[in-house]
């Protein structure tokens, strides 16, 4: 269907539109017009992606700026989905407009997924694929080849150079599969095709990391212009992605490997001095000038990635004491040895970067400044030495990255040394965590660089938390409710068992038999009444294991077994996917199944349980994080001190966003239906932290239920759902045809005219009042405030 938002004609590839989709698009447009950032929460299953794409594509095509869209999502499957939607949208546009638009949309994912090289693509680990590809495609390899030397190259990569650089692939939308097929046919590398075409396409769809991880972003995304529209979809976890992208762990093993890498480097340097000393001299001469100049010939991927250095640093010359290759390697060795010594300590240590640097300087005479240059200097050296087996230097690179980060950022980071894996472990296995505490650091360049950043998800409540944590301001911040023609999902909060004992996964009571039994009963009851699939979420693997074994002892599983197949998620990805497959088969046949999984696991984040695959979702306990973790503690403290977010507020926010994610899993569309059970006493108080669309659907009478009451409601609900429900019933309410939309717009217009008129009338009155001295509304406000104060003081009097 085709309609206008303001002056912008939008083509929407479906004959009907949901009211919230329309509202969402309006707000998007507002944001783009204003040129600011926004946070939008759109109920899951209401076609967020398609609304987003149709609006932004319309925007691109209509206005002369043709702003590019960068759409970031989390997983491969989400990227695929978005590409498919985009493809369908463009097809629809073509049909409607009667001509094909000049348009190119590309997806990008890691080499591991896109590589075509017959042996490289068979490598299991992504890092190895990257490293091997680099050794086949580095600039000096090509140079050698052109000199007639016999070096292995990748033909898929070299073919690209024969094509026009701005037209490696024809216009159109290319899904990842399509890209691979095209690459195979034309013998060109899909990965590099996509990457090099990035500045020539209208829409890019890729993973968060290409923008957030400064190590990758520097290389992949640096050419994107300021007026790009950046979208982070499924962004409820974005703060964690940011933090992870800047954190590193160093172990004894990685240090050993780093030493070996340094020794290799040393050997290579001596070799090169004998055979080709000029190259080293050249490098040296360039470094005297400054890093940026040395980087001029920066190829798209000479070595591994580097963390972002402040720009002024890049322009500066490399410190004199690491200018020479051999000096630099000695420098690295010293640093690695120092770390090794630190790892020998047998108590937990947490320190800030400045204190680490002070200690380092005292014992090794390593200054902060050369340390900052470490990563870049190493990259330059590796390039000069023309190393091909790059994977051998990965550990060394990690250490160098760490060195750069620790010397660059004073605040927002912490070093935590944990000598033992757990409190009870006897054999030390030390890990040095260098953890980023401030999510704003990684995302800051994105906000600085792009004028419109859109952060959106199905569950991103409370909205104001994100701007606070990530340090930005919004022009629009909105949470949409879900319009429904019938009540198609039933959220309930169960706080006690049928025996009235409160249930909770709180630490003190979680293993009490009465609580476990009550949870078991809840499970049994719902397994009886739920048709087809049912998903159960636990706060952690540990708790899941213990409760399952207790249920086994109580005979609860045997009871459940009568009604449903039971499947369990494990930390192993392969096992889990097998369990999922079985689960899906079982849901399509016969009695259905129960999937027991973890609220922070893979299942809760990426897998949808639409229709028969999930009729009930049961959240056992509040999915709090493991608060004893030192890293989490440090982060909490940081949040409190820097952003004034209190520990409990953050923990509760974090738990609820995961709970909301779990709940959202079962409802993937408006014709879908499902029951959502939150089983913990503590949910009662946290109800308002749920996304608006869920919180609104919880009836006041269903927030404090016992198991038997919940079962009653659920049965009634399911009976309602069993009534025939035709798409026609939704029309005009939860789905709009074009006519409904027009009607709505008319009404809106009338409304706004009316308001305007009233506003004018008000203004006249208000004007008069103002001349008399006081504006009317403020007076009222002040009055109200006083009232409260009065009450408060009266209460206090009563207290005495």
């Amino acid at each position: 269907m085709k309609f206008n938002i303001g002056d912008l004609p939008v083509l929407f590839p479906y004959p009907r539109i949901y009211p919230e989709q329309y509202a969402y698009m309006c707000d998007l447009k507002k944001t783009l017009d204003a040129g600011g950032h926004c946070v939008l929460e759109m109920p899951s299953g209401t076609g967020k992606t398609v609304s987003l794409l149709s609006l932004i594509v319309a925007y691109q095509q209509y206005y002369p700026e043709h702003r590019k869209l960068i759409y970031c999502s989390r997983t491969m499957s989400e990227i695929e989905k978005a590409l498919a939607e985009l493809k369908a949208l463009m097809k629809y546009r073509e049909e409607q407009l009667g001509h094909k638009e000049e348009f190119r949309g590309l997806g990008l994912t890691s080499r591991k997924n896109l590589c075509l090289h017959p042996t490289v693509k068979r490598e299991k680990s992504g890092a190895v694929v990257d490293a091997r590809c680099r050794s086949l495609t580095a600039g000096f390899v090509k140079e050698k080849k052109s000199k007639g030397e016999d070096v292995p190259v990748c033909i898929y990569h070299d073919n690209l150079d024969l094509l026009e650089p701005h037209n490696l692939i024809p216009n159109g939308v290319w899904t990842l599969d399509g890209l691979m097929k095209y690459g195979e046919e034309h013998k060109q590398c899909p990965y590099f095709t996509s990457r090099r075409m990035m500045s020539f396409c209208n829409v890019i769809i890729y993973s968060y990391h290409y923008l957030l991880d400064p190590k990758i972003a520097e290389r992949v995304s640096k050419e994107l212009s300021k007026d790009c529209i950046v979208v982070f979809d499924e962004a409820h976890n974005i703060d964690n992605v940011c933090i992870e992208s800047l954190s590193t762990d160093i172990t004894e093993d990685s240090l050993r490997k780093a030493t070996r890498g340094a020794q290799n480097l040393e050997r290579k340097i001596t070799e090169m001095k004998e055979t080709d000393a000029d190259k080293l001299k050249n490098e040296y001469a360039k470094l005297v000038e400054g890093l940026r100049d040395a980087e001029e010939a920066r190829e798209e991927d000479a070595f591994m990635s580097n963390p972002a250095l402040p720009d002024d640093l890049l322009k500066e010359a490399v410190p004199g004491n690491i200018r020479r290759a051999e000096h630099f390697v000695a420098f690295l060795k010293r640093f690695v040895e120092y770390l090794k010594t630190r790892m020998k300590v047998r108590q937990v240590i947490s320190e800030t970067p400045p204190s680490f640097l002070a200690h380092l300087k005292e014992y090794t005479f390593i200054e902060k400044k050369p340390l900052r240059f470490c990563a870049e200097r190493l990259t330059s050296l590796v390039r000069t030495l023309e190393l091909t087996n790059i994977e051998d230097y990965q550990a060394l690179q990690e250490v160098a990255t760490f060195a750069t980060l620790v010397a660059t950022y004073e605040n927002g980071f912490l070093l935590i040394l944990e000598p033992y894996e757990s409190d009870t472990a006897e054999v030390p296995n030390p890990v040095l965590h260098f953890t980023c505490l401030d999510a704003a650091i990684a995302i800051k360049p994105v906000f600085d660089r792009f004028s419109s950043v859109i952060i959106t998800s199905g569950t991103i409540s409370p909205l104001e938390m994100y701007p606070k944590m990530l340090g930005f301001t919004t022009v629009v911040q909105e949470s949409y409710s879900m319009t429904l023609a019938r009540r198609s999902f039933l959220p309930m909060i169960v706080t006690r068992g049928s025996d009235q004992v409160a249930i909770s996964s709180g630490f003190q009571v979680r293993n009490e038999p009465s609580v476990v039994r009550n949870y078991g009963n809840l499970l049994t009851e719902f397994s009886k009444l739920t048709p087809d699939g049912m998903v159960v979420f636990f706060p952690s693997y540990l708790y899941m294991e213990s409760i399952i074994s207790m249920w086994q002892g109580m005979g609860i599983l045997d009871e459940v077994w009568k009604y449903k197949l039971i499947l369990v998620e494990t930390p192993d990805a392969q096992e889990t996917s097998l369990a999922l497959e079985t689960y899906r088969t079982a849901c399509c046949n016969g009695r259905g199944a129960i999937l027991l999984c973890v609220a922070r696991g893979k299942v809760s984040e990426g897998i949808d349980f639409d229709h028969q695959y999930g009729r009930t979702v049961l959240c056992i306990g509040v999915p709090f994080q493991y608060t004893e973790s030192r890293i989490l503690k440090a982060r909490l403290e940081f949040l409190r001190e820097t952003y004034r977010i209190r520990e409990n507020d953050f923990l509760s926010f974090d738990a609820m966003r995961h709970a909301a994610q779990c709940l959202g899993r079962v409802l993937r569309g408006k014709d879908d239906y499902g029951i959502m059970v939150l089983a913990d006493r503590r949910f009662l108080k946290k109800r308002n932290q749920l996304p608006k669309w869920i919180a609104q659907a919880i009836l006041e009478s269903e927030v404090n239920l016992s198991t038997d009451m919940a079962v009653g409601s659920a049965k009634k609900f399911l009976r309602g759902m069993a009534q025939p429900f035709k798409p026609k019933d939704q029309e005009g309410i939860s789905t709009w045809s074009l006519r409904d939309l027009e009607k709505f717009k008319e009404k809106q217009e009338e409304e706004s005219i009316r308001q305007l008129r009233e506003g004018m009338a008000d203004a006249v009155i208000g004007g008069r009042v103002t001349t008399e001295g006081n504006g009317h509304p403020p007076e009222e406000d002040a009055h109200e405030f006083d009232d409260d104060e009065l009450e408060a003081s009266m209460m206090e009097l009563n207290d005495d």
Partner: protein
Amino acid sequence: MFRNGVSKLVDNPSDDICPVCKSNRYLNPSLQFLINPECYHKMCSTCVDRIFTSGPAPCPVPHCGKTLRKRGFHKAFFADLAIEREVDVRKRVGAVFNRRHDEFETLLDWNNYLEEVEGLVFDIVEGDVKTRTIAEEKLRMYKEANKGVIEENTRVGLEEGELERRREKAEREAARQRRLAVLREEEEEKADMLKTRQSVLDRLANEDVDANTIAAQAQKIILKKTSARRALKDIPIQSNGSAMDAGLTIRGLKKKEAPAPEKPYDPFGGLDLTPARYVLQDHYENEWLGGAKKDTRHMAGGYSLQEYYARTMFEAFSGLGVFIEDEVTDRNQQPQAVVAPAVETAAAVQAAVSKTKFERNMELDDVF
């Protein structure tokens, strides 16, 4: 986990065995290794006691034979003794070559200096006997030649370290205070909550009001109190922050140069009024003025012909060298740039230009 230990042994089997008496750490977990910076040969503490207690003795490691004293033995910081030695050398060299960045004119000079020092260290650490002696000689000579500077820099370095330590301490203390404050606040909140709840219960028991109203009121009060407390809380922490800043300013002051002495006040704001197109003479020949020079009636009032000259000349020349057309076109071409009239002083021009530059910079910033 066991693998870890094993692999370590494989990695470097000598790590855990005393090369002198061959005791093994696995049999004797308390085994401790010591080194002597004379030769960096490692041996266990028992060996050290056994061999050196009765006075200096030659190193027991084959082919070494250096005379060692017990006093010189200590635990190594690094597992890799080559690094240990290197760091000791650095300590020695660093104590002598302790120039600071701000002593150098340019960054390049500073970097060259750094590289030179690094080269020297390298010669001492890795060079053969000859290079080593040369390097040591250089070190000695430099030390002789620059005694004063070295001492001064050592002093500055120590001071800086001290300040840094103090600042860190202040920061830690501030953090601790903040933490305590938060704890206290939480306690208070809890106590308050209990109290309020109690009073609500009392009221429920004693008064004849609708239970819901009371509950709602209580809720409101709790909320209000919390927010009030939060507002309060902000204040002490802020002040803590400034206390920390105070520590920083002390540090900043150290480096700052003494402020330039204040110049006398200039009512013209630096505008230079000396005429550019003529030189004012003391005396002009003019018959019409001849009489005035001597006339007491003129002199009596303190009238000076000099003033008359100055004004007349000024009036005669004012406006010369100003071309309105040029100025108009200039102004139209670059509206932002301040057009510099001929009389304007250099300083003002400078200011105007730098201002435009600044504005341009802003524009540039906007583009990226």
